[in-house]
């Protein structure tokens, strides 16, 4: 049994967060979510479409016992992100929000300034903020100080499936962060997810890699296993990881003395 994930004071067994976009149908999403074992899913806030109607996904996800994390996708600046967050709080009665601000429509890369502003305001307003951002260690520290519950640095641009392109920076962020680090965006294969856990990530978020797979349900199950494997390996203590976490206090004392 690996350690539980704790986000915003809530405990979870699964460390895989699933994104709900790009699925063929609500049923397809629901099936994949179940196979993934995910206990957290992100959703967007959009104007209702009376003419065409959209399958409700809120109820099926809730039936699976999944905690909903609304996001602010579509927001192009802090003001829109804050607005979207308040809408979703009103709509769902949850104060969880994933802040994502990407004015850039081509690569969907997050705007650091607007993200920071939105996170700061929302955190002050009592939201449990999960900040989607670029893998910038300084930015992540600033977001942490602004009061976010977790940082979500990207592995690679959304939907690119290029894996952990930002690996060197993720390592730094994970090492320096006092809040959980959720690697989000760009994860293309289960091995990418496993790698993120081996580095010490608290959780990963996957959307496109599952939704766009030939068989999303099977892929979701594969990700489920990869996340578990990666985290188990991390907790077992990889042979080439620095043993600092396992050092005994007598050793620490001894070395401190020896350095005087």
């Amino acid at each position: 049994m690996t350690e539980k994930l704790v986000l915003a004071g809530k405990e979870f067994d699964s460390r895989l967060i699933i994104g709900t976009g790009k699925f063929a149908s609500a049923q397809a999403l629901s099936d994949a979510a179940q196979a993934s074992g995910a206990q957290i899913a992100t959703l967007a806030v959009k104007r209702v479409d009376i003419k065409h109607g959209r399958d409700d996904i809120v109820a099926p996800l809730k039936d699976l016992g999944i905690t909903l994390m609304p996001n602010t996708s579509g927001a192009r600046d802090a003001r829109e992100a804050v607005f979207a967050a308040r809408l979703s709080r009103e709509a769902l009665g949850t104060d969880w929000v994933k802040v994502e601000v990407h004015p850039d429509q081509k690569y969907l890369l997050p705007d650091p300034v607007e993200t920071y502003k939105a996170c700061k305001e929302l955190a002050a307003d009592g939201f449990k903020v999960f900040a989607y951002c670029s893998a910038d260690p300084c930015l992540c520290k600033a977001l942490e100080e602004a009061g976010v519950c977790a940082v979500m640095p990207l592995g690679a641009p959304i939907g690119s499936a290029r894996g952990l392109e930002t690996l060197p920076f993720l390592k730094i962020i994970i090492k320096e962060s006092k809040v959980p680090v959720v690697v989000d965006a760009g994860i293309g294969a289960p091995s990418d997810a496993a790698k993120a856990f081996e580095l010490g990530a608290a959780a990963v978020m996957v959307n496109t890699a599952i939704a766009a797979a030939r068989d999303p349900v099977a892929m979701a199950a594969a990700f489920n296993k990869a996340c578990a494997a990666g985290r188990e390996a991390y907790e077992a203590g990889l042979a080439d990881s620095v043993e600092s976490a396992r050092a005994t206090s007598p050793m620490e004392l001894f070395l401190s003395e020896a350095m005087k």
Partner: protein
Amino acid sequence: MQIMFNQEPVELTAPLSLQDFLSQHGIQAAGTACAVNEEIVPKSQWSDFMLAEGMKLDVFSLVAGG
């Protein structure tokens, strides 16, 4: 009277509460949030909130996406 509903003009034959408007359009309260003139109207006030001429009503719900 005319209001804007999700950025499209809509004719209302008589004054209407926000709650009634939503019911008429088959919009459930669960998972839904409303803003009038870009200000959020809390769910608790929907029954009392009367729509008026020229108001811009935006109704949002939680959907798949991210």
